[in-house]
Every structure is written in C-alpha cells, then in structure tokens.
C-alpha cells in the first residue's frame, strides 16, 4: 500500500484519536519497524549532536556501509542522557537538512551591478576575497586614533557569525579576524 505523507499523517492522527478502523483498518506498526530495520541494517553509525537549539540532543547518523556514503537516516541517540532517543520536529527532520537539493554546492560570485550569480572555483573565490580583504584593510588601517593613542585596527571591515560553528571554528575565526585588526566582530549572541 502506497501512502503520501499527508495521507499518512491524517491516518495516524485518526488512529491516535482511537478510530483506527476508519483509517487503514490494519496495524501499521510491524510494517514500519521492518522497513526501518532494512534501511539501516548495513549502515555505519556515527554519533553527533543536533545542530538546532542548545539542548544538545544526541543523534545517530546512519551512512552507507563504508561510512563514506550518503546519509540515509538520522535519529535520536537512545544512549544520550539528555534526550534518551527523543527528538523534536526539527531534529527529526535533520536528514532533510543534509540531503537537500536546494543546498548550494559550488562557490558563487555576483559582480557589481549584475543581475545574476555565476559559478566560480574555490581557488578563484578565495584569492579574490583575500585580495579585497588586503585592499580594504590596508586602506582603512588606523595605527592611532584621534587622540593619538595606538589602536592598530582595521576600521573598514566588519564580521558577523557564527553560533552555528563548532567551538574550534569559533576560536579560529575570532583569532583570524582579530589578527586582521577588526573590531566590529559580532554574532548571534548579541541579538
């Protein structure tokens, strides 16, 4: 029996209300658990932590057998002491964040006054950005402020983000921006 997801929601919603017979008339449970076993039987398990709110729920990511394959399932980690296997709607939809056709998979560039993006290579994009960082920094670098005090800062570049980065990346990015002399360094925690 094939069901669209919406039909499925309707039917399971009805079953929760105790009128299951009006829906499918059969118990879906054995079929569902069998299907799930098949899906992850040969998969590799990797533990992770959900990327949405800061409750820090544990998740298990199932990938193809070799571990280098596609993500095929993500579910709550039953061994995790905080969520004990449970996830909210967002956590339960994590695999759709990973496997999503709308993800951008190549660097893009929009030229001044242009109406469109163009695909570019990483090398080109990063060299071009580096060049602009240097130009903006050198042009706006201020060794002394109006009072004559030493400030050694870059006034012409600002940075925001991110609470979505890992700790190690957070540390790296603030070190990089501070080494470049930026003082306008902010992120989600301020808003």
């Amino acid at each position, binding site marked *: 029996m094939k069901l669209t997801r919406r039909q499925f929601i309707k039917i399971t919603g009805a079953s929760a209300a105790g009128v299951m017979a009006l829906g499918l008339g059969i118990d879906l449970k054995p079929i569902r658990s069998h299907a799930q076993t098949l899906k992850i039987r040969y998969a590799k398990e990797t533990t992770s932590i959900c990327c949405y709110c*800061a409750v820090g729920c544990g998740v298990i990511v199932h990938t193809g057998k070799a571990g280098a394959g596609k993500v095929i399932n993500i579910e709550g980690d039953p061994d995790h002491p905080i969520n004990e296997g449970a996830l909210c709607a967002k956590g339960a939809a994590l695999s759709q964040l990973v496997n999503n056709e709308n993800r951008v998979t190549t660097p893009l560039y929009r030229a*001044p006054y242009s109406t469109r993006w163009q695909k570019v290579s990483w090398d080109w994009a990063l060299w071009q950005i580096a060049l602009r960082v240097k130009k903006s920094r050198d042009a706006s670098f201020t060794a002394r402020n109006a009072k004559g005090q030493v400030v050694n800062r870059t006034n012409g570049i600002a940075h925001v983000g991110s609470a979505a980065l890992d700790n190690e990346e957070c540390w790296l990015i603030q070190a990089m921006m501070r080494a470049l002399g930026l003082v306008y360094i902010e992120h989600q925690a301020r808003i």
Partner: protein
Amino acid sequence: MTNHWIDIRNSDCILIMGSNAAENHPISFKWVTEAMKRGAKLISVDPRFTRSSSKADIYASLRSGTDIAFLGGMIKYILQNNKYFKEYVANYTNACFIVADSYDFHDGLFSGYDPATHKYDKSKWAFVKNEKGIPKKDPTLQHPRCVFQLLKKHYSRYDLETVSSITGTPKEDLLKVYEAYSATGQKGKAGTIMYAMGWTQHTVGVQNIRTMAIIQLLLGNIGVAGGGVNALRGESNVQGSTDHCILFHILPGYLKTPKASQSTLAPYNKKYTPKTNDPLSANWWGNYPKYSVSLLKSFWGDRATPANDFGYSWLPKLDDGKTYTWLDLFDAMYRGEFTGFFAWGQNPAASGANSNKTRKALTRLDWMVNVNIFPNETGWFWKGPGMNPKEIKTEVFFLPCAVSVEKEGSITNSGRWMQWRYKAAEPPGDARADGDIMIDLFKKIRWFYKKDIKQGKKAVFPEPILNLKWGYTTRGRYDPHKVAKEINGYFQKDVTVKGKHFKKGDLVPSFAYLQADGSTSSGNWLYCNSYTNKGNMAARRKREKSGIGLNLEWAWCWPVNRRILYNRASVDMYGNPWDKEHPVIKWDPTAKGGKGGWVGDVPDGGWPPMLKPDGTLNPKTKYPFIMKPEGHGRIFGPGRADGPFPEHYEPLECPVEKNLLSSQLVNPVIPKYSTDMDIYRTCDPRYPIVATTYRVSEHWQTGVMTRWQPWLLEAQPQLFVEMSQELAQMKGIKNGEKVIVESARGQLKAVALVTRRFRPFKVQGNVIHQVGLPWHYGWVYPKDGGDSANLLTPSTGDPNTRIPETKAFMVNIRKI
C-alpha cells in the same frame, strides 16, 4: 545556565518566563515533566497562552516589557511575608553589606545620573569599607543602609495594585505565582527559572535577569540542585561561540578586549585584575594575567615573548567609551563606514532588528562574503524586494559550507556541556567545512603580505597576520583536534607547578596551572581541562547510573567539569547540603586521609566549609561566590549601566503615556540611533497595538536551516500574526485572512491567526491589545511565505548589552 538540562528534574518549582520551553526547547521539557512527576509545580508567565502554559499548574499573562514590575512585586511579597532563606541571605549574599551615603534613588533615577550624557556615575553606588578595605557588614540585616533594607525600601512601591495596573496581570494571578514560587525559600527546596530571549530582548533586558537573580538569592536557589538562573540558549553552539567571544567587547574566556587607553599589557592587566583585602575572598579574577598571557601565547606562539609584551600591541584596540555592537555595526555600515563585510553562518538581513535598515546598509558595501548552506536573504539581498540589482555595487561571494554531520568538532550546549561530534559523511559537491575555508582564506591573505615584504614594499602592519599561529592542519586539511588542544593549552617549557613536573608540549591539566610568565598557553582558560594528556574529555560517553543527574563522565563541562555553578552555596556553613535528597557537594571530614574533602560535583574550589565543627570560623575557607571580589552573591549590583537595583521602565515603544512607578517613562540610559531609518513611535494612535516576536517548534531562527525542509515547511508554511478574538472582532478580521502588519519602520503581509491564546490586557484602566509574529520567514523561500518579522522591530536595545528590543514594540493591523 548555572545548572543544566537534566538538573531541572530536581526542582520543586519551575518558572517558565521569558521563554517557551515546550515549543522552542522541546526536549528540555522532558525534564520539566520528570520534575512534575515528583510533585514539582510548573508556573508559566507569558503574554500568550503557549504550549508551556498548557502544561502549567499556574498561568499568568503579562504585557510584553513589564517583567520587572511583575518580579519586583514578587521581591516585595518575599520580604513582606518572610519567605526568604535567612541563613543563606545573611551569609552568602551581599544583603548584609552597608552601602555608601552617595547611593540614592528618587523618582526613577539613581544617584549619579548625568542628563547631558544620559549616563550614570557608578562610583556613587559603592559599599562602605572598614579600615582594612573590606566591605562593612551587618549580619542582622537591620542597618538602615544595608542592602537588605535598601532592597525592601526600593520594592515597597511595587504593591499588587500598581503592578497589576502596569502588567495587566490580574491581582489574584500575581498572588498565586508569588505564593507558589516563594515557597522554594524553605531550606531544602529549590526553584528554577527557565528564560530566553523573552527577557533579553528589551531595553531593560539585563535588569530583567537581575531581578530574577535577586529572587533566586533571596530564596537560596543558587548553587543548589534544581535551582539556578537558567538561560535557554537558542543555537546549538551559541554558548561556545560566546565562550570563545566572537563579540567586540571580549576575548576568549570573557577576557576584555583592550582599549586605546591601555597602551601596554601591564595597565591592561592591572585594569581587569580585581583586588580584595578580604582573606576569605577567593577573588578568582585575581588570576586574570595568567589567562591573558596564556591567550596571547596561543595567538602568537613563540613570537609572543616577555620582551615584546607577548604581542599585546598586535591586538586591535577599541576607543574608550565607544561600543561596536551589532546595532552599532549596522549603523556604521548604513552610514558607509565599511567597504568589506563577512556574514559567516548568519543571516543578518532577516535576524537583526530593523531589517530594512540592515538590507539598505548592505548596498553600501564594496564587497561581502556570505558563508552558508542555503540561499538566504543576506547573500541574495541584491535581488530582494525593493532592490534594483543594476544600481547595487556590492560584490557578493557566496561560499557553500558543510552541515554539522559533515565535519568533526565540538559544540557546547546551554548547560555548558562541551560535546564532541564526529564526521558521518562528505559535504555534497564542492561544499567545504568552515574550518577548511578559514584555514585556506587566511593562508591566502598572508601570502599577499609576504609578497609585499619580498618585493620590498611597505606592508601595512603585517606583524599580527604573519605571526598568528596557524598550523592547525593535518595532511593539508583543517584538524579540529589541533585547535581543541590549542584552546586547552600547552606547557611552553619544562616546568614544575604546584609540585608537579611538566614537559614542554604537555597539555595543561587545568587552569589552576596556567601562568603569567609565558610558560603556558591556553586559547581559552575556561576550556583548560577539556583536552588533556588523558584525552579528549568532550568525547566521553559514560552515563551516570544513580545520583542527581550530574553525569560527570559524559562529555565535559566548563569550568573544570563543574556541572552546577556556585555549588559551595548548596551547603550550610558546615558543608552539609541544604537539600539532603539532592546533594550537589558535601564535606567529608574523613576524605583525603582525614584532611577532609568535598564529594559530589567538582566544587567551586577545594577550600573547607566556612565553619569548623566547633562553630568557629575556619581561616582556610572562602566565600562561595568566587567570581566576585567580595565573594558574595550580588543582590545590590553596582556594575550595571542602569542601576544597582532593577527598576521598571516602559519599552521604548509602549502603549502608555505614564510609568506608574516614576516619572521616567523609559530607561534613562537607553541607546538610540539617529539615521533616517531609525524611527521610534510611542503612544502614537497610528500604532496602538503591542507586538512581540516568537518562534515555533518547526522552524529555527531566520528559517534558513528549516524553510528548505519539506516536512517542516509543510507543518508551518508561512508567516502569521496571532491575535485575540476581541482584537480580530474590533478590526473585522477573520481567522485565515491576509492582513498587513505595520510599524513605524516597515510592513508585512501575514495570515491572521485568531486565537484565545492572546487576551486583551487591562492596563492603567484601559484595554490594551497585543499580537505576536514568528520571525522565521524570508522572501527567498518559500514564495509567498512572508518576510522577516524584524522588518518591524526597532533598532534600540539594552544599555548594558545593546541586545535589540525585539520583544516589545508598537504596530497596527489592517485588512488587505
């Protein structure tokens, strides 16, 4: 959070106010439910009857922006009815401190206010000190100038009648909440607060939290299991990103960003190293130079030497007295001060207050770099509503990054647990991990400076760029383990500290071993102990089998794996837990071969209890609030920009002409901005309805990471504006109809959601309506899903933090 998620189950009374845990931190509610099974009471205070409210024993509504009035009334109730925990208050808080005569409060203003600069002279709010320089105390709490008596006087004005008339909360509901919550002032009982942006996003945000902190100190709820002041943080690693300080005013580990007046390291360290003359005060920040020098060693490695002040001059300096916050940043961008901008893992075109100003500001850049997973309103701003790409000069680089399961590293949850994540899959196509992008970009920038030098050109201040330690790769790829170790810190030479020998290159076991002479490095002293010679502590996975849920061997928690902060206040003066059923720590006199020691959680320092068994003071003890130079919990808080006691002021945009508590309508030190796009309207008949923003379970923040998922979008497909049946009837609006919501700054189309969850408020004798909007939507996707609610919100904020006031502003609604 001072405590952590699982610890909520130990509470006897849970107050959810300024947050909506059931919908926005759904799994946290599991632990609320566990507490309720044990008999705990749940209180929900919210302008809207949320799903958290639906599970609560007591629900009270209040008008957005009136939390201090509500809680000030609770302080009055606690004091008037002797509900406070006397032993705790007298010994562990500054209630007994005598305040100088220069402190005063009159008609909404504290002493020291300068109307010309709109600033306070905080030196007026000092404590009286004895001949040894130690604050004078009156343990009986009777001295008319002691904090306790001043507190009583301050909140004597917050009577039920006045509070109810300000907040719109019925008096009987106020009483129900006050009575239930203040019952946790009994010895052995614990109450906890779960708050979030509903408290921070106000022009009195910091003082909202201060008011609750005062209540928690009065009731003896800090340091204990099931207690604390608990911020429910919104992003998976916003705790970690704050700890590592991607913020203008702080360096990793909450060290201060240097100011222009601090020309060298010595005056900088001196300024931020507090002193105490009290031998019983641990004054932990007295260790400041050890942490700042160790940080400089992590930044610059061997290039940082005593001779060059450890590279202090290579750090950029802020102008004294100037702020560089989010609101300031976009104000400066709008005024054309920047040529370049990075929006890395963030969507400011939808997330910040007054988004129209932000979007316009982006057109004034020469270039922008946007790193993200999906198309978003920031990187795509030049295509947005009202924009003509042919007139916009800004060059935009979009760099696609990996999602969390496609890279390795750690994140820190709201309970300060640092948890390791492993890589499960490769990112799709050419997308890259953020760490790899950073490593590569900085190498390329550095190459240009090296080229300048090679060619004999004068490079502009190249030292910090050339000297920044950047060897965090393995086989050419970003290696998170190398950075995690750098954050923990290394010994830089063979040394002996506290009788232990360490070799150069050893990982530092904890911040107690860090030094100010350059012999140690640590990228963040608070995380020192997270990655040691014993291994990666964040990757531990051993669950607690019995106990109060501390889970000391699951992952790692800052500082030094301490799960409940200020836990030395969870015991009496002899070291016995107030709550014997849920002991956090306990003094065991037989431990350590009869020397005595603490058992349980990692204590806030290993010093013995305050009193010896014979009742005399133990000279080796320390007060429990070790981060304050006085060692006591601050009921009187002289460090804030807007006063030592919280005072109710109306939001900058409010529906009333009068503040019933004083003639100061709004916070007198409120920040305002002055471009043509900073418009504020109060008591304006064009905008008569109070509005607030909130979130739904199915979306997250600006929606960039949820709007693209079919399941989530199907569940919550578009922007709505929620309103009461009474308001809908008055405006002739039916549920499901499209309406326009407008503020002085912008307008939105939204679907009307008419519910009984909002009810009109009776405020100062008038009926006041409030509406609410989720802020997850944006024009990029889905089509016709609506735009960001931040198009409506004002660019003003808290005077201490400048967090924008996006939870209380004025709008109007009309049918299309």
